[in-house]
């Protein structure tokens, strides 16, 4: 389970970083952006 969580955490962090460079999270809902991802 820990290994699965590790992979999921890595993929999610990668996606979060990719989304951070855009103006919004692709569609019509924008959750609060974590401080560490802000400019």
């Amino acid at each position: 389970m820990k290994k699965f969580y590790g992979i999921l955490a890595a993929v999610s962090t990668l996606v979060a970083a990719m989304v951070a460079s855009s103006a919004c999270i692709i569609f019509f809902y924008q959750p609060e952006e974590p401080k560490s991802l802000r400019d």
Partner: protein
Amino acid sequence: MEKLARRLAHNISSSLGYDDEKEAVVAYGLIAIIQVSMIILLVFIFGILISALIETLIVCLSVSILRKYSGGAHAGTAEVCTFVTVVYCTLTAFISKKVFAGIYNPFAMAAAVILVFATAFVIVYKLVPVDSPNKPIKTEKKIKRMRKVSFIILVVYFAVSLTFFILSKDSAVFQSYGISLLFGISWQIFTLTYLGSLFIGKINNVIKIKKEVQR
């Protein structure tokens, strides 16, 4: 949808010993993955159901690619966002293929292309990027980059639109593809404006009131 992502992120963080900030980043990524997967799956299903899969995907992708760099009005919850996106993509794809393609007129189409792109370029120049309180865009460098990329995307859309227009003389399928692309661009441009923001706000309020009544 967001609750599910945050709960999963909490479990991951507890298991791997992450701090609050790392958990927030994982949750943010999970919300994006779940939301995008859900919308693409629903758009696929409804696109097949109305026999206009390509048209539905054209509307969905043209909105989302431009939206990534231009920003725009936002729904209050991920569920409202999914609902609005799927309904708009399905409905306009259906209208493009079953209604407008049947009464297609090249002169009317050329006028629509000119009107939509002229409006889109002006609005992108004046308003982009339209940020939100949950993701403010402050630096001048990022504002310029977002505007520049939005312009490039619009130029590519214009080239694709012209290609569809030329090909539509020989093949009828490109008529509905071209109309779908215009519907996608129009919606995204609309959400950049004050009117678009009011409209999305109204939808948020209606769904919020319905939920409160159900409780």
